[in-house]
Structures are given as structure tokens and as C-alpha cells.
């Protein structure tokens, strides 16, 4: 088993954070995992992506050009769609994108997630990353919700942001139960 996911969006959307939570959850299931962030002069609003590779075996390249799954957090991230592996999965944060399909790539499975009304209901504009992560977990069943919640708690507490656990947990659950 070798699976990869790219989460692509803008700095400030929590893409790196979502990728790390997911990677820690994978570790808890005793699988091999690599997490590779885009790094450099990143800033809020600039490009920010991360790649997570999961395998039962030793992982070769942690950098993947053809992911199995792509999470599109904003409009410019549509650029990545052409590289998604055949018959792959694309999850789109559709309230921030003009397009809601993958153009020529008819082979791809697409899930559009209109996050705006959910964020309004949750009364927090900052947790679309967790909603989409929840959708991804449900769609692939790749790690358990239990381990993801434990990873979320661990990461937030590590960063001294334990008080945001509840809202992130809620967003993750809403995403998970959406489809």
C-alpha cells in the first residue's frame, strides 16, 4: 500500500496544520508516513502546500508529483489537478473556487464541499481545513477518526493552542458526517 495526498491552498488556511494532524494520525496506526511542506518565504495568502505519503513499507520519495488525492483549498490550486493520478480523488473547497469540476480529467472522482455555510454555522471562519480533512477521512477510510482526534489534540497542545480543540473537533466531525 502506497498512498499520497497533496493539500494545496494559501498560507493561513491551515493546510500545513491539517497535513501534520493527518500524518500524526497515520503514525498512530503504525504505518510509515512522510510529511513534506512547501517551505520558504511563505506568508498569509501566498502559496502553501504539503505532501503526505503513507505506506506499509519503507517510503522512497517523500515528494510526489502524482498524488492519489488532492485537496484544493483555493482557486490557484487547480493547477495541481492535471498531475493527480488516474482515477484519483479531488476534494474542492468550492466556496472559494470558480470551478467545481476537473475539466478534461473525466476520470477523477470529485467531491465539492461548500464550506461557507458550515463555517457560518460553526461561527468560525478558520476551520475549513478540518472540514475538508473530515471529508477526506470519510471518503478514503485511510485512518480512524479516533486517531485523528488524538492527533489533533496532540498537535494543538504542542503548539499551546489547546483552547481551539473543540472548534477544530467540531469542524472535523461535520466534514466527516457530510457525505
Amino acid at each position, binding site marked *: 500500500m502506497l498512498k499520497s495526498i497533496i493539500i494545496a491552498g494559501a498560507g493561513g488556511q491551515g493546510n500545513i496544520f491539517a497535513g*501534520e494532524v493527518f*500524518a500524526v494520525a497515520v*503514525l498512530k496506526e503504525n504505518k*510509515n*508516513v*512522510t*510529511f*513534506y*511542506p512547501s*517551505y*520558504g*518565504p511563505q506568508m498569509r495568502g501566498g502559496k502553501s502546500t504539503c505532501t503526505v505519503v503513507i505506506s506499509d513499507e*519503507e*517510503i*522512497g*520519495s*517523500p*515528494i*510526489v*508529483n*502524482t498524488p492519489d488525492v488532492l485537496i484544493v483549498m483555493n482557486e490557484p490550486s487547480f493547477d495541481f489537478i492535471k498531475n493527480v493520478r488516474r482515477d484519483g480523488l479531488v476534494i474542492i473547497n468550492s466556496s472559494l473556487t470558480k470551478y467545481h469540476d476537473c475539466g478534461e480529467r473525466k476520470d477523477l472522482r470529485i467531491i465539492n464541499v461548500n464550506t461557507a455555510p458550515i463555517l457560518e454555522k460553526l461561527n468560525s471562519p478558520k476551520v475549513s481545513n478540518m472540514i475538508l480533512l473530515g471529508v477526506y477521512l470519510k471518503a478514503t477510510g485511510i485512518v480512524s477518526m479516533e486517531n485523528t482526534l488524538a492527533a489533533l489534540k496532540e498537535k494543538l497542545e504542542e503548539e499551546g493552542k489547546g483552547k481551539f480543540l473543540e472548534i477544530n473537533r467540531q469542524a472535523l466531525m461535520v466534514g466527516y458526517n457530510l457525505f
Partner: protein
Amino acid sequence: MKGNEAIAEAAIRAGLNFYAGYPITPATEILEYLARHLPVRGGVFVQAASEIEAINMVYGAAAGGARAMTSSSGPGMSLKMECISYIALAELPCVIVDIMRGGPGLGDIQPAQSDYFQIVKGGGHGDYRLIVLAPSTVQEAYDLTFESFLLADRWRIPVIILGDGALGQVKEGVDLYDKAPVLFEKPWALSGAKGRKPNKIVPFNLEALELEKMNLALQNKYRAIEAQEVRFENVNINSKTKLIVVAYGTCGRIAKSIIKMAVEKGLDIGLIRLISLWPFPHNEIRYLARNFPSTKFLVVEMSAGQMVEDVRLSVSDDTRVSFFGRMGGVVPAPEEILREIERKGLC
């Protein structure tokens, strides 16, 4: 844990007494981690005003008998070179981490392997060598950094951990096993001469014959290291292997992906992944080249082709050695390397 953090944690567990450094992407997390953890775990951390200052502080700390380390990337490593040459003749143990980024010049901050010539062949002046270890995963970065302090002390030589931006930034699970560091007596250290004859550490001698003697002693030591400290990993190499990929660091692990993909395509590709770049496994590659006379070699690097020169020396038949590289901070994808292998009919 990030590669950079694993390096820093391994250094502390190996008994690091003194660290001095100056921030530079993509190596900064080493300094950040040590700033947070080293002082509370019994060591001294200094953020120096420059890379030159940092390496000179390491020189002093090592002369005093401390386990000392610094870290940097391309431009910062260039600044350190004069002092590294001094430390080499002074025969002092220390660990220097280079997390390579795109060059030359200020270049960029993405992963590269274009410091191979500088680090493996010299960089500073004079006939010196450094032990150069090139981890390819976060776990190996941890393992080799831990061990590098032992090697440095055993051979009284600077050891370089040569990584790249991808190794520094990637996060993986790491087994932080508990192992007591092996510590060495250092009777040569400048530890205060009260009650004993003063020690002298001077990388300088105006008498040519005397300096030649010092050089001969260094060379003897280097021959012994060459005989004992070569490290590499062979994957899938046997008499049927048509092509052997030669790579290190991040390209070394990318090559493992190539081998898996090749198996699915029914291609016979092997890998020799170099762990020590100096000493270089010349004998092992020579052995493979002689025993498998129809096998070709493909060197994969994130550079214009630097290590490929050493592989050519070992294989001693340039027609059997090809090169694939990306530069400027571009990390090659396994698919594009495999395409190149098929296009050139190497396998």
C-alpha cells in the same frame, strides 16, 4: 519530527556540550531546536553574529575538549571554509551540519546537492579530508548524527552531516532510542595546564619539513579512515541487474521509489546508496563494475553532476556511466528518472 529537529536531538543525546550557529533556511530549525533544548539539558548555546564567528567558536570549544557543533547551508558553509581547514590540521573533533540548498551565489532555499565538491573535495585550502555522512531519511539523520560525535572524537576529525532542504524539512516518525554516548578521554585538550605540561594546538609551522611531517600524519590517518569507515547500502544488486543507480541523501531515497516502479515494469534496476561520501566506496563500486561487466551505472544527483566524477573514477569506463540531475532546487520525480532510463535504453 523534522530532519533538522532529529539532527539537533541526536546531537544533544550524543553529549553535545557546545553549539554556535547563525540562522539560514533550510537549516534554521537545528539552531532553533538547540536554542530551546540545549541550555536546559546541560549544554551551551550561542547564536553567533555570523557563520565565521560560529565556526571559530566551535574551533575553540573543540580545542577545549567539548563536543561541539555548528550548522548552516550553502552561503554560510562557504564562509566557514577557512576555519574548517584550520580545524582539520589542528586535528580537532567537531560536527558540522550542511543542509544544502540551491546555488551558486545566494541561490535559493530549495533542496540541492550542489555542495558535493565543496564538502567532499575540500572547500577550504590544503590537503585535508573530512568524514562526510549523507543521511537520506529522518531516522538515518538521527542515527548518523549520534554516531558522528563518536567518529569525530575517535579520529580527531571534523565530521560533516551532509543533508539537503528536503531532508531538513521532511517530517517522519523517529525512534529516539536511548543509548549512552561513548565518551573519549582528551588528554590533548586545552583544559587548563595546572599541574601538567601545557598542551599546544597549532595548525601552523614555518618549517617546510615539519609541516610536511604534519601532513604525512594526516594522510596516514586518512588512509586508516578509508579502510574502516566506508558506508553504503546495496539494494537489489545481483548478476541480473542491468543498471545500478548511484545516489545519496534525498536522491538515494527517491532511487528506492524508482526500483519499486521498475520491478512493476519488469526492469532490473539496482541501487548503491552512498552513506559515507568520504571515505567514498571506490573499492565497492570497482568490484561491482568488474564482476558485472555488462552492468551500466546511472548517477542521480540534484546538481550538474559532481559525484558522477567519483563514480567514473571507480568504474574506469566512462561509456558505462550516465548522469541524471536537476539543479537550482528542483527535486527530480521518480517517474522522470525512470523515463530517462527508458529513453536512453539503459535498462
